[in-house]
């Protein structure tokens, strides 16, 4: 039985085409992936991401515990600040990637991938004993909306007295939106400015409808999972399960910046420290196909007459109007400019390793 968010009926009534995603029945698209993708780059899009998991960690030693189970330095966070991080296993493999919200020094909120919520909760709880930390899966208590795009702030500002321009990138605040108590963070998974809005499921329909009505004159459209995927790929944001998993490490995935060795011990430290010092044999690299044929997930990659990997994430990029992708390749092929070949249904097409991110938004505010 597939799970549904509090917005299932609302989205189905709007024409959302529902598919199974990580055990959830979610809209893959409304008006179409390309239109939705472009709306987010040029105006704004609204996504229901309530399927994502929320895990709360509390206790006097919550900080010490999170330092041990996550890779980033949680001690750098102030109240209401947010941090990108990973859970790693003893081999340095990535159990999941996540956002860590510091509510206060004894209370943290972790936002994890929908597909991994149960696994992460079990994993975190198993490690929590020595730290006496309280760990709760509170996913059912949240609706989570993502309002993304260059006009996201203008739309949301119409519905609150809170000065949103005082919430910097990767910070959050408790904000009342049209009478609904929310936590709003300036975060997202699209490469655009925007917000993620947490509230209780009872507020879901009111918030969704008010945001859509308020944003419509500015170009806001409801968006599905297909646009979410192409937006994150264009911005070179990794997707757990495609671009990283328990067999790949943060260093290989190009996420070494979210690992802080100076903070002390954490699970997987030994392997990651060695890889940072000595280097790795393969790396996640970005490529652009020099052909009209899109590269898709799983297509083989060849160079010098042999297979060197396969596509982890590949798609046409609607804004860049190029066929792009990410793949693990041996480091000698990971340099920007290196020619590779993608095997598309038996035919080799030319591609080239490029610098990531593929897309970076212009600075609009300063």
């Amino acid at each position, binding site marked *: 039985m597939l799970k549904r968010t509090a917005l299932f009926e609302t989205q189905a009534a709007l024409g959302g085409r529902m598919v199974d995603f990580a055990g959830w029945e979610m809209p*893959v*698209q409304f008006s*179409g*992936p*390309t239109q939705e*993708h472009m709306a987010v780059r040029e105006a704004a899009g609204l996504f229901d991401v309530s399927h994502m998991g929320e895990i709360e960690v509390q206790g006097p030693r919550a900080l010490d515990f999170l330092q041990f189970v996550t890779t980033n330095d949680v001690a750098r966070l102030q109240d209401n600040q947010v941090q990108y991080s990973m859970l790693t296993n003893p081999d340095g493999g990535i159990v999941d990637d996540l956002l860590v919200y510091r509510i206060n020094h004894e209370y943290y909120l972790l936002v994890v991938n929908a597909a991994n919520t149960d696994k992460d909760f079990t994993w975190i709880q198993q490690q929590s004993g020595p730290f006496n930390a309280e760990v709760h899966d509170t996913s059912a208590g949240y609706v989570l909306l993502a309002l993304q795009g260059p006009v996201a702030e203008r739309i949301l500002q119409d519905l609150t007295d809170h000065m949103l321009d005082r919430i910097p990138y990767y910070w959050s605040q408790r904000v009342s939106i049209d009478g609904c108590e929310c936590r709003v963070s300036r975060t997202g998974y699209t490469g655009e400015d925007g917000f993620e809005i947490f509230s209780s499921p009872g507020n879901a329909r009111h918030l969704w409808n008010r945001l859509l009505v308020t944003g419509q004159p500015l170009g806001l459209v409801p968006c599905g999972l*297909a646009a979410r*995927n*192409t937006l994150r790929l264009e911005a070179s944001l990794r997707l757990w399960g495609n671009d990283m998993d328990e067999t790949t490490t943060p260093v290989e995935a190009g996420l070494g910046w979210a690992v802080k060795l100076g903070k002390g011990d954490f699970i997987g430290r030994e392997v990651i420290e060695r890889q940072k010092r000595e280097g790795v044999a393969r790396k996640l690299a970005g490529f652009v196909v020099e052909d*009209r*044929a*899109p590269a*898709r997930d799983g297509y083989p990659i060849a160079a010098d007459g042999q297979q060197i990997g396969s596509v982890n994430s590949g*798609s*046409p990029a*609607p804004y860049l109007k190029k066929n792009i992708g990410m793949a693990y390749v041996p480091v000698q092929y990971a340099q920007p400019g290196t020619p590779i070949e993608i095997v598309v*249904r038996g035919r080799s097409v030319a591609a080239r390793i490029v610098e990531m991110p593929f897309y970076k938004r212009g600075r609009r505010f300063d």
Partner: protein
Amino acid sequence: MANTPEDLAYTKDHEWIRAKGDLATVGITDYAQKQLGDVVYVELPKPGDRFEATEPFGSVESVKAVSEIYMPVTGSVVEVNESLNDSPEQINEDPYADGWLIVVKMENPAQADGLLTSAEYEDYIKAEAGE
């Protein structure tokens, strides 16, 4: 609603054909292009290639997926719509005219008579959409 011209024959895989003597022009239906969304790439066979009825002969790709296209009848390709290489969006804009895919020389033109009429195809897509 999807447009289904009465002078064409249809398959359950959402291709259409327009038969004239032993030649047939083949494309994908308006319903199919709407389901796919914006077509960004089309892969077609070469003139001379031969396919059995129901065999895949190429693919149409949108941003999110690759869809195979299937031969409505047995025959050899005599012409390919090369303009789709530069303008695959013609499949969305005009699926029954500029968006045609290939012309086939049919080995058994009677096969075309066994395909769905526009009324039958309309019933079929209504049932499919209603699932």
